[in-house]
């Protein structure tokens, strides 16, 4: 197995692959790695930090040259990073940072900034007043926290009210159901911010069923479905994290590190607001 030692191996630990965003991230990583002639070992942490640690441990016994870590959670990632540090494996984090340990570089677009972008968009379109419903992601997940915080902090600067805030688990079915239920008690709604596109698409469906086509729906992630919806005008906007680009950037960074170049500790990848 170790015969082809001239092609270097990169270990990529991804937080989950049950979500199109991370599937795209993986795609970006794999495609660019192929171009640059690296092998990639992808390990899925299934959104469980303990599994992430196990994955990191497993990488230490495989002869990988570097680890690209997409943490489940920034705090718990410290444990994983330290394992790599102890085995002298250089680590680059992607999408979520690690709050400790030695990380060579971090490549991401900031979730909180994205949340704020969505807020700014809505503030502008609503003229600074109105009622907003916020659909939150899985309670306790870092994406839900960061996107929510960025959004809420920004909105607080305006006269817009967040009149309902409920979790729909990042899930389209839940987005639909929860929105349907909210609509039973709240009818004066100007906009919906969903912390990911799946929920946004579900909510959009609920609104469409009620004939409430004027409500602005803003999602997050810019998945294909969501971008289509924005093009058709059924969704107002989605915050594009450009996962493929993030993945590519990360591999570029790794390539440089392996070639001995010095790179920045933080490489931001631009966020984009996709509107019609």
């Amino acid at each position, binding site marked *: 197995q170790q015969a082809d030692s001239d092609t270097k191996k990169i270990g990529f630990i991804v937080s989950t692959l049950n979500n199109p965003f991370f599937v795209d991230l993986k795609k970006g990583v794999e495609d660019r790695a192929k171009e640059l002639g690296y092998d990639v070992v992808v390990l899925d942490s299934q959104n469980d930090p303990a599994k992430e640690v196990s994955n990191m441990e497993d990488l230490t016994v495989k002869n990988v040259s570097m680890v690209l870590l997409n943490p489940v959670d920034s705090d718990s990632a410290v444990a994983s990073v330290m394992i790599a540090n102890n085995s002298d494996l250089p680590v680059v984090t992607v999408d979520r940072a690690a709050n400790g340990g030695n990380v060579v570089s971090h490549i991401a677009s900031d979730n909180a900034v994205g949340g704020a972008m969505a807020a700014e968009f809505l503030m502008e379109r609503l003229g600074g007043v109105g009622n907003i419903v916020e659909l939150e992601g899985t309670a306790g997940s870092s994406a839900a926290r960061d996107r929510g915080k960025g959004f809420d902090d920004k909105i607080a600067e305006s006269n817009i009210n967040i009149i309902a805030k409920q979790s729909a688990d990042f899930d389209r*079915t839940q987005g639909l159901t929860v929105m349907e*239920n909210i609509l039973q008690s709240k009818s004066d709604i100007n906009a919906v911010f969903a912390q990911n596109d799946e929920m946004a698409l579900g909510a959009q469906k609920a609104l469409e069923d009620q004939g409430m086509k004027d409500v602005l729906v803003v999602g997050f992630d810019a998945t294909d479905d969501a971008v289509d919806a924005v093009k058709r005008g059924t969704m107002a906007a989605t915050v594009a994290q450009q996962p493929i680009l993030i993945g590519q950037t990360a591999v570029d960074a790794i390539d440089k590190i392996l070639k001995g170049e010095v790179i920045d500790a933080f490489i931001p990848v631009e966020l984009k607001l996709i509107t019609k």
Partner: protein
Amino acid sequence: MDISSRVDNSKNKSLNMKEVLVKYKSLLGLVLLIAVVSVLNPSFLSVKNIMNILRQTSVNAVIAAGMTFVILTGGIDLSVGSILGISGAVCASLLVSGQNVVVAVIAALLVGAAVGFINGFVISKGKLQPFIATLATMTILKGLTLVYTNGNPITLGSNELAMSFGKIGGGTIFGIPTPAMIMMIVFMVCYYILHNTKMGRYTYALGSNEEATKLSGLNTDKIKIWVYTISGILASVAGIIITSRLYSAQPTAGAGYELDAIAAVVLGGTKLAGGKGKITGTIIGALIIGVLSNALNILDVSSYYQTMVKGGVILLAVLLDRKSN
């Protein structure tokens, strides 16, 4: 002889009383819940919201109907969520590839039936414990769905085909949401099967005493295969409803649905040990769960507390029902 008739009469009476009480209790729980919520927020009882609840409940209720068969035999089916996921994906991908609605729906149902059949086959012929066998198929199917969809949702788009397929989950018939209609038909058929046909009675028989059922010359393997197949088919029905409702199939659709379905069955008074229970209870159980989720949203309960309240209400409901053991 008057001795035994005395005894039996009194027993009979107490039995009927008991049965009424059992039904009454689940129902009581439901009515109580509805009463409390509608006082807290009157819009809860609007026609529109009631239709909402029916539509939302239908998916879990349809799965739970199949689960009732399985649990009545003393088994359990953890794979229903994954079956929902894979059959939704199959249905959507066929539609995307331009097949007509009937073909796609039938294919999805066949997938569910096939997986259910495999479950039943492995459990009966392989003599496996249903919990672990269906846990394994659940895991395998989850992976299979991810491979099949490549982790991405399969979206139907908005062409005419998609629109006509969308009626299954989103349309209405005589003003009643189509999924609710499907749910009612499913329950009526299940009721008929359980109470009027041989297979229905054998389902109870198997759960009551497997050895005795076997000694009576019945093919218990066949009964097992049958109930898991039913459960698989109804899980696909639920998968079709969801896919139609969302115009898309999600790669992770159905995760965790098994627990909701089991909870509905148990809330409806069916014993996990098998043999005892009613399909009418299951629909009440599903409604309790559906009303609860809807109510928590309507009442603006913060999501952290929603989980707690849901657990608490389930506990309360079964405690209310416990005397019937």
